[in-house]
């Protein structure tokens, strides 16, 4: 048991976030996530789920509080060190944010190109990823010609290809049918079994029951409504050890 003890890779302490001069969007948010865990973040629309995820994927700095990622304080981290952290995180955005002028293949290849992977080492992993999300025959299609579900799978493939240690998905089942939602969750579960820590924001409570070992965080009005209660379950043990580092 001791050898497989999960390590904390995300820690929030009394985090507050205020956009502009209004009321705080997030207040006194404290929690920690274990490496290899599967976490659902729920709450009604407008509760602050996207805002919390933005803090997590380093698109936003908190107004107050402490955030530790991979055992480092990221609130005071100098700007030039952020890219290194971001490359260890995969994000499936609520609106996908695929690059419109790039094909499915090139969209999925983006993180590898950013990481400086050579062109001739690119095709194999990207094609594997396309096959994994069932889009091998759509490799050269532009996002505009893909269906919502297909775009979503491209977005997931892009988020995953760099072998991130944490995969963050914001309402990934927001615009797909229940059947596709089930398939996506199956995909996430498979990734989690490979050791990736998953954080999935959703207001769809039907999803929650589909991953038995998942833990629940609930946001309401910018506060974790019962953080201690929600995170009481010990994290499930990762099936395949530690998450792999990005390949480059």
């Amino acid at each position, binding site marked *: 048991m001791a050898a497989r003890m999960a390590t904390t890779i995300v820690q929030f302490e009394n985090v507050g976030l205020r956009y502009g001069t209004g009321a705080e969007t997030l207040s006194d948010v404290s929690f920690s996530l274990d490496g290899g865990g599967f976490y659902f973040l729920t709450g009604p629309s407008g509760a602050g789920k996207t805002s919390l995820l933005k803090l997590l*994927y*380093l*698109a*936003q*700095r908190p107004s107050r509080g402490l955030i530790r990622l991979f055992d480092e304080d990221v609130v005071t981290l100098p*700007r*030039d060190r*952020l*890219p*290194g*952290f*971001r*490359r260890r995180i995969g*994000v499936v955005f609520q609106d996908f*944010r695929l*690059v*419109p*002028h*790039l094909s499915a293949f*090139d969209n999925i290849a*983006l*993180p*590898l*190109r*950013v*990481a*400086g*992977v*050579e*062109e001739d080492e*690119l095709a194999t992993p990207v094609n594997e990823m396309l096959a994994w999300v069932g889009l091998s025959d759509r490799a050269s299609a532009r996002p505009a010609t893909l269906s919502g579900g297909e775009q979503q799978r491209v977005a997931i493939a892009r988020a995953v290809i*760099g072998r991130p240690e944490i995969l963050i998905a914001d309402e990934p089942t927001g615009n797909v049918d229940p059947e596709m939602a089930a398939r996506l969750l199956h995909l996430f579960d498979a990734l989690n079994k490979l050791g990736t820590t998953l954080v999935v924001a959703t207001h769809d409570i039907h999803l929650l029951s589909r991953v038995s070992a998942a833990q629940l965080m609930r946001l309401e009005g910018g506060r974790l409504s019962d953080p201690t209660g929600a995170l009481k379950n010990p994290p499930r043990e990762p099936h395949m050890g530690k998450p792999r580092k990005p390949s480059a």
Partner: protein
Amino acid sequence: MTLPFAASPAERRLLTEGRLSGPMPWVIAIMMFLTVLAAAGGLALNHAARNVTGSIAQRITIQIVEANPDLREQQTRAAMAALSAMEGVTAVNRVPDAEIEALIEPWIGGAGEEEGIPVPTMIDADLTEEAHDRLETVEEAIIAAAPAARVDDHAQFLAPLAGLIGSLTWLALALVLLTASALAASVILAVRAALNTHRGTIEVLHLMGATDIQIARLFQRRIALDALLGGTIGFLTAVIVLLLLGQRIGAVGSELLGSATLPPLAWLLLILLPIIGAVVSTLVARFTVIGVLKKML
């Protein structure tokens, strides 16, 4: 330190290839055209100014205005002898009578001498700068030898011309600086527009861990290509215009206009302009992109 133009093939495919923004190369071409013309004008004027102030400004012309031809001839020789003996006089040349007649022909017709109209003789003398500074003593010595002599200092009647040429040179330099700043400003605007068009892509790249330098390279490479293309078009057009102008000037055959040609060094400076333009555009693009990115987390 990577070259400003360098972008790996991987980076190049992050943004679409192809032209950045339609009118950009043309704006650069027009700016470059004006810059090259203004610079050529400035360089030619500078060259002319050197000629004017250099070779003929220390020249004096002595006229012997004497009605009696024998006396005129005698005084002319005396003045020339006095000049030749003088310290600081580097050359003494009598202007041939035929040349003088040709000079005054338009005013008095072809038969000046025959009709008894006295034509003065003329002597050109080149002085050293030091001798030119004490022109009064030189003049006194000449008049002592030839009382009918009248000394004209070229510098005196060239002074307003030299002043005009000097002002025009400064004007040309100011025009070069103005068009160069307009060029830089239009590059900044083009980069901002491109950044806005690609903002979504940039944000995504940014959140994937692309560094500011990586993103800046994508833009500066495209701007560099646009600037090089536009700069070359503008430069070549200006060169064609300059060559045609040169032909026209050659046809006029005036000594003063003729000295307004471009020496080889000036052409070299002109060729540098589109290259400098491309490098400056690239740097402006780089710093604009990095400046905008710095405002993102």
